[in-house]
């Protein structure tokens, strides 16, 4: 604990050290957040100069908006698959790439590449790939599965979203797992080998428990990104075909801006926040518990 002498000095360092950050944080995050909550109690349409308070009407409408819950359900499915696939692939890559393989840093760099570009850009690239490249290949090679654009079929469009998301984040999570794996002390593993433990036993008994902190971070990050995905959704499928891939962020955005129902859109955004907060807190809570147990 560091403290200055005198109230004035203490206040001055507090302001200097935390003032700019907290001021920006409060005015950019917290104030708009609460103002947004206020707006959920109004009937503002996004443009008119006036709005009136409508009480809890918008929240009632959230629960009646079946489309919202449908897209939330779809988002849950999307999050489930992306979280599992991202983490499995990332972990496997990281595992292989910490074995001292030739060119492993080159591989790591390559797998990380997709993280350099933003969602709009890679959404576009992949739209081009699914609509043009894959179809071209499919027609040339007469593979029925590939001859029609995946983005025009509800199920395949969903999987296209999953594929692109996994492609985007696997490299990032891989790097985190690599960091975790490098922290697993080698001498323990060697000792285990001498004791006759095979690869799988070592993995289950020693590596995985030691990797729990990395898993927590990666699952947290992929959960959070999964729930909030927007730009890939917009750039890749626009929610189509027939709204079958409209994830929840996009639904909220369209309620507010397209249907001109700002209050309802904001209320849905707030309900979404509560749900996501609940899920991620549960995740952190249970994995912390696991960490302690392990």
């Amino acid at each position, binding site marked *: 604990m560091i403290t200055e002498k005198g109230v004035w000095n203490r206040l001055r360092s507090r302001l200097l050290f935390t003032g*700019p950050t907290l001021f920006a944080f409060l005015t950019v995050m917290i104030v708009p957040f609460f103002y947004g909550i206020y707006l959920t109690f109004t009937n503002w349409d996004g443009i008119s100069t006036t709005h009136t308070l409508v009480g809890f009407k918008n929240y009632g409408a959230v629960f009646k908006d079946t489309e919202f819950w449908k897209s939330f359900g779809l988002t849950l499915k999307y999050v489930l698959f992306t979280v599992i696939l991202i983490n499995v692939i990332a972990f496997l890559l990281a595992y292989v790439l910490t074995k001292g393989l030739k060119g492993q840093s080159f591989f790591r760099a390559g797998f990380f590449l997709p993280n350099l570009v933003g969602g709009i850009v890679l959404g576009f690239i992949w739209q081009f790939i699914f609509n043009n490249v894959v179809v071209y290949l499919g027609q040339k090679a007469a593979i029925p599965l590939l001859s029609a654009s995946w983005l025009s079929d509800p199920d395949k469009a969903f999987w296209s979203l999953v594929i692109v998301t996994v492609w985007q984040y696997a490299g990032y999570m891989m790097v985190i797992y690599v960091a975790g794996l490098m922290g697993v002390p080698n001498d323990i593993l060697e000792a285990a080998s001498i004791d006759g433990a095979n690869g799988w036993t070592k993995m289950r008994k020693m590596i995985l428990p030691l990797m729990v902190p990395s898993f927590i971070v990666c699952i947290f990050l992929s959960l959070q990104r999964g729930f909030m995905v927007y730009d890939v959704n917009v750039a890749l499928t626009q929610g189509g075909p027939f709204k079958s891939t409209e994830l929840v962020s996009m639904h909220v955005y369209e309620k507010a801006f397209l249907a001109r129902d700002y209050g309802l859109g904001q209320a849905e955004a707030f309900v979404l926040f509560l749900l996501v907060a609940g899920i991620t807190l549960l995740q952190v809570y249970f994995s912390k518990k696991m960490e302690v147990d392990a």
Partner: protein
Amino acid sequence: MVGSKSSFSWLKFIVLAIVLILFIVPFVLLLINSFKDNNAITSNPLSLPHHFSFSNYKTAFDEMGYLSAFMNTFIITTVSVLLISLCAAMTAHYFVRNNTKFNQITFLLMVASMIIPFQAIMIPLVKIYGSLGMLDSKWSLIYMYVGFGSSLAVFIYHGFVKSIPVELEEAAMIDGATRTQTFFRVVFPVLMPTTATISILNVLWIWNDFLLPSLILVNPEQHTLPLSTYSFYGTYTVDYGPLMAGLVLTILPIIIVYLFAQKYIIQGVMQGSIK
């Protein structure tokens, strides 16, 4: 015995190489097609360009207003990244060294705010800052990046500051240095690797960000690279050639930096994750 082991590792190498190609192929396709015209792109997206014509790049360069967009993006990214690192490091340091209830709660609030979806803030943010007449300016955008970016940065710094022995600072203070002097002379240099990590994460985020700048920067003269690339999407149609070239031009600066600093970037991300 040895032979089987090495053939196994060759197998692994080949599988890895195939996976890597899958990861990189989208970029290669983008590059190839950026040299072709619309017709050639749609009729065979896999063919190599017949001749290397930079006309798409010229169109993209002119229509995007590349130089101005690049400068805007560059200024916004560097200033935001520097400010976030500086402000967040100071705040995290203060929080760790003055571990009062109030500071703990503030810290927790910042951490908790990381799960607020941007969509929940977006519209009120525009409404508030619009009524203050603060939109359509780089500086407002930078200010917002500081607000949005500080939570994660404070969170990461917080973990690292804790690992710095407090004795180091106490020694400096006994020598008569103030807290500010101690911070800049002793703490900030020690935090350099963390600063690098946070800067890298923030560069990747801010350079490519689309939604926030699209709301804040209205005037075309203020546009950043991702925004100006977007102008190639027509109402009904997409002119693929220039768009591809535009996309290449947008990601090129960051790819170049990556080629040179790849090792540090990966290390940076790695360090960011071990708290």
